[in-house]
């Protein structure tokens, strides 16, 4: 009988068979990587906002405290988005007629709210409470990043469950003294040592039960 296949098919077929196994592994790895890529997580992807509000300017230049605008962060699950009134407290005086702030003034005149684009956004089945985290010494910057260096607001972390667990499993790696919570550029010289002290001082539990966040 005559040959059906050319010599080259030998190599081809072997490569394709044994290479196939490698391919499967590669695909899984790729999928895992893509899931964590900014393309899906929006980490450090700034959003267009009705007003080009700069946290950098207001926090580091003007030194305004987080709580001046995010009023309920210490008392409620919801940190609070500043009402137009709060903006106007200052901007009725300064930059009172800057065209950039027209949307603010317009909202104040018409009483129609400004529609900000949400940056930090959790799925509907996750219940996150700002107040308890703040009270237990989790700094704003720990989750939101150095907001004081963000001209435009963007997400610093994936907000994935695996990310939440990093801290819920080992709070000592992240907690800081309560008085430093709103301090953007606070650093511990020895986080672990301090962390352990604080964890016992603040009675911080390792809450990894499902119903802590899902109910």
């Amino acid at each position: 009988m005559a040959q059906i296949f050319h010599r080259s098919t030998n190599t081809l077929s072997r490569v394709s068979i044994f290479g196939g196994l490698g391919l499967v592994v590669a695909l899984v790895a790729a999928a895992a990587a893509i899931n964590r890529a900014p393309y899906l997580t929006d980490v450090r992807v700034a959003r267009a906002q009705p007003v080009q509000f700069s946290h950098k300017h207001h926090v580091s230049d003007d030194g305004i405290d987080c709580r001046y605008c995010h009023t309920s962060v210490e008392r409620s699950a919801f940190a609070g988005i500043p009402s137009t009134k709060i903006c106007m407290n200052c901007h009725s005086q300064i930059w009172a007629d800057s065209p950039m702030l027209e949307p603010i003034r317009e909202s104040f005149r018409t009483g129609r709210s400004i529609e900000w684009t949400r940056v930090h956004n959790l799925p509907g089945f996750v219940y996150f409470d700002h107040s308890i985290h703040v009270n237990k010494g989790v700094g704003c910057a720990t989750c939101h990043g150095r907001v004081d260096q963000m001209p435009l607001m963007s997400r610093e972390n994936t907000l994935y469950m695996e990310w939440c667990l990093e801290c819920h499993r080992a709070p000592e790696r992240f907690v800081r003294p309560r008085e430093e919570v709103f301090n953007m550029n606070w650093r511990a010289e020895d986080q672990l040592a301090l962390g352990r002290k604080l964890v016992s001082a603040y009675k911080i539990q390792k809450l990894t039960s499902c119903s802590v966040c899902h109910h």
Partner: protein
Amino acid sequence: MAGVKRNIVYGLMAEFATPEALVAAAERARAEGYRRIDAYSPFPIDGLAEAIGFHRNLLPLIVLIGGAVGCLGGFYLQYWVHVFDYPINVGGRPLNSWPMFIPVTFELTILVAALAAVFGLLALNGLPMPYHPVFNVERFELATRNRFFLCIESRDVKFDAEATRRFIEGLNPEGIYDVEN
């Protein structure tokens, strides 16, 4: 010169009608001192492999290793998940409820062992090999039907076109063919 010849001819092939004839021929060839010989048959024939001098078989070892990997890996996967990765109280059972880890461990043992067996087989046999010189022989297609072939390869140090051909004729086969490379 010899090198050139080798490049042209892969070996000499003899055709037989019965398995017995093939086995006999194989034994004689080996007795003659040929080492690079191979026999082809449409179904496995006891003693043929031995006749052409094949003894050590690595496959069982490979399968054993595969099984061990599957077993240990399988158990560790479960142990890691429930004891290290996310320890959580499920139905008041201990984190390491090893009796409940047995089934998956067992299945993975079998799975990896079986994969090892098949891929080991392919690897050792050098398959897939869709192209092979012996296919150049017209009558060889009967090797998967009802004919039995013996091939003495030119790689054999003792191989010599004339001498070998004479030797094979001595085996009174149904036919003799040159196998081009």
